C-alpha cells in the first residue's frame, strides 16, 4: 500500500417534520401518547384506505430546499418502495424516487444530492430480556409514529473526517432549527443520520467500496461510529483485503460494528409511481410562501457576526450554529453598550462554561445584565476575576451586576495611591523578580502581580497593576 488513505464520507439524514398531522392522513403527530392512539384507517394501512398529501409537509420541504440552495422541482411525484416488515402496514413506504422535491444545492461547501419527502415507519417493540428482535418473547407494534412526515437529505460524499461530518451535521441541525421545520432532536429520533463511508488513496478521484452505517442517534456516536468504521476499513485495506459493500450497525457502548446485511442480501424495492397520489405541482405561490417563512439562516448569521461585528470566525460560527446562543448574544448586544467582541467572548466562553448545553435564556441571567457586566469590565471598573464572580451570582440568582458589585465590594480599587503603595511593597519584597522584569523577561511580571492580587482580593484591575509595576521600575508603559 503506497500513499495515505483518505476517508470519503456522505450523510443521509432523516428529519421528522414538525407538522400538526401525519404525512398522508389527519392523525396528529404523537409525542409519547399511549400506543396506537394516534391512528386511523390510512396510517394503519386498512383495506381501502387512501393517502392524501400533507400540504404543510411540502411547504416545509420547499423551505429546506431553499435553505440548502437546491433546485426545486416544478413537478415531483411519489413512488412506492415495496418491502415486507411489521412496522410497515401497507407493505410499502410512500417515498420519492427519481422525481424528488429538491435536487442539488450545497451547505458550507458540502454538496446536496437530493431532498425528498416520505413517511416514517411504525415502532416495533420487542418484549423480553434482550430488547432486540433476537431472543424476544413477543414483538408488538405501536403505529403512533407510522406515517410521521420525514424529509430525507442526502449529501454527496464531500466530507473527509469524522469531526468534519459531525460539525457539518451540527450546522445542518442549526439550519433546520432556524427554519422551524423540525424539533431536530437526535435522542428522540426527530433527526437521524446514516453515514456512507469509504477510503481511497489521497488525491485519487476514484471512490472506494462504501459501507453504510445506520442510525447513529447522537453527534458523538456519529463521530465515534465513523471513526471506528474508518479504522476497520483501513485495517482491511492495509491487510491487502477488500472492503465488502454492506449495511452496518455501530454499537456505541461496545464500539463494535456488526453487519446488518450485505449487498447480495439487499432488497429489490420494486419502486413504481404511487397510483393513489397525483403529482405535486410546485406553484409560484407555494415558493413565495416558503421564501417568506424563512428567517436568517445560521451560515448567513455567522457571516454577519464576522463581517459586521468583527467576531472571529470560530466565535461567529459557535454563536450562529447554536441559535439560542446567537439569540442571547443579540439580545444582550441590543440592550447595552458592551463591546461586541468582548460580549461575544463572554457569551460563548464564560456563560457557556456555566450553562453547558442548556439554553442560557432558561438560566437566571438576563441578556441585559450580562451586557452591563461586560460594560463595567470595559470601563475598568471591575477586574476579570471579580466579573467572573459576578457572573456566578447572575447565573445562580440573577440580579443587576452593579448591585452585586456594590454588595460584595468587588469594585476595582479606585484609590490610586493605595494601589501604588501595594505595588511598591510587592517589588520591594521580590527584588529578583523585579530585576528580571527590568531585564526584559515579560513572564517574570506574574511573580509580582500574584501577591498584589492576593492583597487586593482580585479587585485590582490587571492592566492598571501592570502599568504601575512598569512605571515603578522605570519602563515604558507598553513595552515588552
Amino acid at each position, binding site marked *: 500500500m503506497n500513499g495515505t488513505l483518505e476517508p470519503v464520507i456522505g450523510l443521509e439524514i432523516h428529519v421528522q417534520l414538525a407538522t400538526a398531522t401525519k404525512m398522508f392522513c389527519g392523525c396528529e403527530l404523537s409525542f409519547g401518547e399511549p400506543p396506537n392512539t394516534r391512528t386511523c384507517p390510512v396510517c394503519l394501512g386498512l*383495506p381501502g384506505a387512501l393517502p392524501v398529501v400533507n400540504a404543510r409537509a411540502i411547504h416545509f420541504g420547499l423551505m429546506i430546499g431553499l435553505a440548502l440552495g437546491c433546485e426545486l422541482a416544478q413537478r415531483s411525484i411519489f413512488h412506492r418502495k415495496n418491502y415486507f416488515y411489521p412496522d410497515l402496514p401497507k407493505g410499502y413506504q410512500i417515498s420519492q424516487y427519481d422525481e424528488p422535491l429538491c435536487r442539488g444545492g450545497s451547505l458550507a461547501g458540502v454538496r446536496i444530492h437530493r431532498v425528498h419527502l416520505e413517511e416514517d415507519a411504525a415502532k416495533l417493540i420487542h418484549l423480553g430480556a434482550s430488547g432486540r428482535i433476537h431472543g424476544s418473547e413477543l414483538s408488538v407494534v405501536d403505529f403512533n409514529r407510522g406515517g410521521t412526515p420525514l424529509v430525507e437529505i442526502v449529501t454527496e460524499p464531500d466530507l473527509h473526517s469524522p469531526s468534519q461530518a459531525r460539525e457539518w451535521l451540527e450546522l445542518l441541525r442549526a439550519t433546520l432549527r432556524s427554519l422551524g421545520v423540525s424539533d431536530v432532536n437526535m435522542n428522540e429520533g426527530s433527526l437521524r443520520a446514516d453515514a456512507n463511508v469509504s477510503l481511497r488513496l489521497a488525491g485519487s478521484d476514484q471512490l472506494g467500496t462504501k459501507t453504510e452505517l445506520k442510525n447513529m442517534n447522537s453527534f458523538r456516536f456519529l463521530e465515534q461510529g465513523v471513526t471506528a468504521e474508518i479504522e476497520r476499513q483501513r485495517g482491511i485495506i492495509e491487510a491487502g483485503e477488500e472492503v465488502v459493500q454492506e449495511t452496518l450497525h455501530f454499537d456505541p457502548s461496545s464500539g463494535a460494528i456488526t453487519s446488518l446485511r450485505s449487498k447480495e442480501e439487499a432488497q429489490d424495492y420494486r419502486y413504481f409511481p404511487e397510483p393513489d397520489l397525483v403529482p405535486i405541482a410546485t406553484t409560484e405561490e407555494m415558493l413565495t410562501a416558503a421564501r417568506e417563512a424563512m428567517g436568517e439562516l445560521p451560515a448567513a448569521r455567522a457571516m454577519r457576526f464576522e463581517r459586521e461585528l468583527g467576531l472571529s470566525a470560530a466565535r461567529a460560527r459557535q454563536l450562529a450554529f447554536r441559535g439560542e446562543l446567537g439569540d442571547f448574544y443579540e439580545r444582550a448586544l441590543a440592550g447595552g453598550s458592551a463591546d461586541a467582541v468582548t460580549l461575544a467572548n463572554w457569551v460563548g466562553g464564560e456563560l457557556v462554561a456555566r450553562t453547558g448545553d442548556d439554553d442560557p435564556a432558561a438560566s437566571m441571567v438576563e441578556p441585559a445584565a450580562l451586557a452591563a457586566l461586560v460594560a463595567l469590565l470595559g470601563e475598568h471598573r471591575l477586574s476579570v476575576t471579580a466579573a467572573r464572580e459576578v457572573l456566578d451570582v447572575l447565573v445562580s440568582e440573577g440580579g443587576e451586576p452593579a448591585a452585586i458589585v456594590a454588595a460584595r465590594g468587588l469594585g476595582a480599587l479606585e484609590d490610586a495611591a493605595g494601589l501604588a503603595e501595594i505595588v511598591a511593597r510587592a517589588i520591594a519584597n521580590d527584588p529578583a523578580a523585579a530585576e528580571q522584569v527590568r531585564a526584559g523577561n515579560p513572564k517574570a511580571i506574574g511573580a509580582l502581580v500574584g501577591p498584589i492580587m492576593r492583597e487586593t482580593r482580585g479587585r485590582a484591575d490587571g492592566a492598571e497593576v501592570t502599568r504601575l509595576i512598569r512605571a515603578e521600575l522605570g519602563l515604558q508603559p507598553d513595552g515588552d
Partner: protein
Amino acid sequence: MNDILALSAAGAAKAIAAGELDGGELFELYRERAAADRLNAFVWVADGPPPPSDGPLRGVPLAVKDLFCTEGVPSQSGSRILEGYRPPYSATVVERLTAAGAPLLGKTNQDEFAMGSSTENSGFGPVLNPWDRTRVPGGSSGGSAAAVAARLTPWALGTDTGGSIRQPAALCGIVGLKPTYGAVSRYGMIAFASSLDQAGPLTRDVTDAALLYGRMVGARDPRDSTSLDFPEPIVLPARTELAGVRIGVPVELAGEGIEPGVLAAFEATLELARSLGASVEQCALPHAPHALAAYYVLAPAEASSNLARFDGVRYGYRASGAGELTEMYTRTRHDGFGAEVKRRIMLGTYALSSGYYDAFYGRAQRVRTKIAEDFAAAFARFDFVATPTAPGVAFELGAKTADPLAMYLNDFCTVPMSLAGIPAISIPCGLAEPPGGGPALPVGFQLAGSAFSENALLGAAFALEQAIAFDGSTPYEA
C-alpha cells in the same frame, strides 16, 4: 308481489316517494329473496330491517360488491384472507348512497380481489348465472350482476378495472356503467389496480343506472387524491332518437375472435342505431389489440403492491404455528390467497423487478398512452365508439378455469377503455345461442365516450334500449 319485483329501482323510488309503496315491505321482500339466494350471489345479507332513511333513493335496497368497505359488515373482497373482516369505516360511495336513502341489502360475491371474469375465483364459491345455472355470470362483479338479473336486488354496486362491471352485465343481460376514472371516489374500495379501479352501477335499465350514478358522483372526495369534481349533474335520460350521433366501430375490437351470435346481435344493434338517425362508420384504434398485454402488466404490478398489506400482522387470516416472521408471512399468504391472485402477484412482482421494470412496466405505460391517444383521435371524429362488450355469451362453469389466457380474452373489448380512463356502458342488445348450442343467452353492446361524457352516453344508451326492448326476465325461480 311479482308486480313489485317488476318495478325498476327508479319505479320503486317513485312509488315510495308517492306513498304507494312501503319501503319496509320492499326491503323485506328483497331481503328474503337475497337470503334464499340459489346463485351464491350474496356473501352477506342484512338480517333485519334497515334504519329509517330519507333522500331521493329512499327505501330502495342496494346490494354492494363485497370489496366495498361497509362499517361493521363483512368486507372480504371475495378472499379467504379477509374472511370475517369487518371494517371500522364505510367507503365514500357507500356513505353517499346511504345518505341518499338507499339501505344496504347485502354484500355480493365476486372474484377474489376482483381478479377474474367468471366469479369462479371467489374464495366463497362460484356464482351461477340466472339465465343458465350451469354457466358463469361473468366477473368480477358476478354476484352483483346475477343478483340484479335474478331480481334478488333492485340494483347493485360493482367495480370495473378491466371490464368487471361491463362483462358480467353483458353475460347477465343487464346494464353496467364504468365511469370516467376519477369520477367516483375509490376511498374504501379494497384496491385491485389503483390506476384503473372505478365503482359503477349494475342495474336493470339505463334509467336506473343514471339514477344511481347521479348519487355516486358530484364534488370530489378529499380522501381520494385521484377523484375529481363531476362537471355537471347526471340527468335521467329521455332521448328516443340518435339524430346526428356519430358512432365509430373499431375494426380491431369488432371482428376477429368474436362469437358469430354475438357479432350478429351487435350488428343488428348498429342497424337499429342507424334507423334512429345515427351515422355508423368504421374507425381505427390501432393500439387496442395491445391493450390486454399492457393491462396484464400494469394491473398485476399495482396489485402486487396493493395486496402486500395482507400479511397476517394486523387483520384477516394469519397462519398459525409459524416459528418466525418470514414463515408467518409466507404461510399466511400461501394459504389465504387463491391461485389466480397468487399468479397475478407473481406476474406483477416480476414486472416491477429491478432490471425488468423498463421492459415491462415502462413499455406497458407507453402502450397505455398510445391507446388514450387512439381514443382521443377517434373522438375527434365520433361521439361514441361501439363494440360488443364481451367476445362471447356466458360460458359453462369450469370451461376456462384451466386456461388463464382464454379467461383473460373475455376483457379484450373492455380493457382499452379502462386503460384510457374513459366511460363505457354495456346494455343488453339481444340473445345469442352459445357456440355448443343450447338456450339463447344475453349479448352486451358497449358504447364508450370521452371523459365525463356520461350524460351523453346514458342518453344514447337509453335511446337504443327503448328501440331494442330487451326482455330481461330470466328462468330463475326463488
